[in-house]
């Protein structure tokens, strides 16, 4: 029994993990805007709250409940 029988499946599992991460990030729209994040990286942090939402500007949240109007 060669070590290959363990290593090949292990390497395939690793590759599978990488693909899973890619699918996850692509589905969240992280590849939509490739221009701004490299610019944003250069900005100094000033202890401002971190952006919670990642993904494209055009993202539409999945649950499209009706918007509540503010009390007039």
């Amino acid at each position: 029994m060669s070590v290959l029988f363990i290593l090949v499946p292990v390497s395939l599992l690793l590759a599978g993990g990488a693909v899973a991460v890619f699918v996850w990030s692509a589905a969240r729209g992280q590849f939509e805007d490739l221009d701004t994040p490299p610019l944003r990286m250069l900005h100094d942090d000033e202890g401002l709250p971190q952006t919670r939402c990642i993904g494209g500007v055009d993202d539409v949240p999945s649950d499209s409940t009706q918007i509540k109007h503010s009390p007039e």
Partner: protein
Amino acid sequence: MSSLAVKASEACTHCGLPVPEEWMREPSGPNFCCAGCRAVYQAIHANGLEHYYEIRDAGAPTVGLSEVDAYDELDDEKFLDLYCSPDPTGAVRTRFHVEGLHCPACVWLLERAARNLPGVRDVRVDFGRSRLRVIWRPDEIAISEVARRFARLGYPVRPYKSSEQAAQVNREDRRMLVRIGVSGAVAGNVCLLAIALYSGAFQGIARDHENLFRWASLILSIPAVWFGGGVFFRGAWRGLLARTLPMDLPISLGISVGFLGGAYHTVRGFGDIYFDSVTALIFLLLIGRFLQRRQYRRALEAVEVLASVTPRRAKRVEANGVRVVLVESLAVGDEVEVGAGDVIPADGELCSGESHIDLSLLTGEARPVRVAEGAELLAGSTNLSSRFRMSVRATGDDTRIGRLLHLAQDQVRSPVVQLADRLAGWFVAVVLFLGVVTFALWSRFDPSRALDHTLALLVVSCPCALGLATPLAVAAALGKAARRGILIRSADLLDRLLEPGVVWFDKTGTLTESGLVLHAWLGADSTRERLAAVERQSQHPIAGALCRGVEGRSCAESVIETPGRGIRGVVGGVEVAAGKAAFVEEATGSDLPREWSEHVQAFLARGWSPVVVAEDGVVVAVAALGSPLRAGARSVIRDLKSRGWEVGILSGDAQGVVTRLGEALGISPDRCLGDVTPEQKLVQVRSEIESRPVVMIGDGVNDAAALAAASVGIAVQGGAEASLLSADAYLVEADIHGVLEAMDGARRAHRVIRKNVLFSVAYNFVGASLAMAGVLGPLSAAVLMPISSLIVITHSFRAHTFDPERNIAASPEESPRSRLAVGSLS
């Protein structure tokens, strides 16, 4: 005797606007138009960032005060429904299009500027597409306040809605990206395993190791074929249902034959496996498709944003004053105030006041129309001179403009079969035929190798390069076109522009600018100054054209304007009367002298509006006003004709004006159609489209239906955003040279495609022959396949389809103005 030279004023060092006289310092040093620009300039210098002025490509954005005040309508209750989508946290998301975004510092500034406002949860900028997303709470802050903050910084923002179509494209895009990722990972790993197998074939490999690698390749290939290759299987199936032989068919055939053959050999334990070729093929083809899609998507998005930007506003008259609301919340019966320069928000009837309106967008009529009480008003026209109130009769889709846009949406045209798809049909037939021949021949000579050789043939002639040939060339051409200011959003525009046919131009806004300018001035400069002093007191659009470019501080007294006829006043003791010939005749008490009336006739014959000027009862000057030709119109039409296109004008403007413009541009009179309604434009385009390609170029809503129905509709910048959505291409610059560039680009792109196709067919021919002869082994096929694709990829991206350096030099333009100055005036 004429001097039309506008005195060149110094431009503001920061923003590029003219510097007012009282702000002028020394001509060489920095000069500013206002205190704001000077402050920004000083701030930039104080921080040692002067480099900004060297690297920027345009003047800094300027903020008008009106811009700052212009966001009241965003607080309308309807805004939430129309422009916001709910966020899971209970806040809402609104997207804005940002103007003036040009450097990383802008991103920094915008993202921080509004974050400390109460109620604003998050601000995020998409630099590449000039967009901004704000997450905010409607119960804590008014969005107009946020928008105003951006505008004050010099970044005017406009909310926009994205259509369901754009969201759909977006979702498909992500799915495509996932497919590429999966197929790429699979292809990489399978190729690694293949290297082990190939070296094992030369150097020897343990039997169980070889089996392990073969099985691993088989299992890895399954997701790539099933998930990544699904695109091609579905495409092939759809094509077969439509009774055509689509490009996807040979691809699917190659993939499935290669995969099934490989699987069969894996199970059997010997024979070649083709998994490396198959997965690399899927990966490369998907990338080609993705690049092409992305270019279309970019163009689609750019145009959509342009078209949906700006919620149009209306000033509704309510019990407690005038309130700014969204056009969408207007109802029939509302009373609306329309200020000078405003766009009329709904169809209706004028109820108090009078003004001039510009209908050119809707009808093509270039001259301002006078309206008084009771006049019918159409949404989309512009109020030119003074404020009035109107009562709303129809809104939204029920207005004339709404109906015209619906008419445009209903146009469908027959799809054009692309070159590669036409070839694909033949290709499939030939490959299948060769496969049968190979199998039959080898069965007779060596039955044990018949299946191997047939498989080798099918895999080597899998049209990888052929499949990449068109999408890549098209994607490269579209990307380059976009950089040249031509946004192409229709898949087959490039194919439709190849054969010459008919080009119809809209007149107002396309061949000519939509405003009025002074074409000719016969008279003394001093008269012109006095006339300008009088006209400065008038709101009439003609007055604006007469004042433009005239310096002078003299002031007119006792000005009396007779609407629709003329104006009179006293300047420095001289009594000036100007207007229509009849008005001046009345003012001077005598008929127009013959020499002047000849000039008036000459101007009328050119389609210009003459204005006669009298001083102290004597006629001293005649001015001619008209819409100026767009730069390059003449040379574009000449070039189009030399390429074999027939050129015509379809305009809603008066027949006489159109005929004379046609004469000036060298268009035959029977192709100069004036007084045409939008519906007639549509009929005209439809009547010819059966026999030859019809290109429609226009800018207004009145062209929208014709743009949509034509083989190729090209919208020109400066018109109504709404007409953009019905066009196949959009020229970002107000320069119809883009039409020629699009045609040249289409021809070059087509040449690239042809070369690509030719190469890949030649490759396939050689490969297939070798495979049939039994010469080509799996190793050489695996090497040949990516090389052929690489050649096609390089050729597509290096080809000069829409390159700036091959820009057609604009020939010196002989404008009617300069011609006249040389001819009749000297």
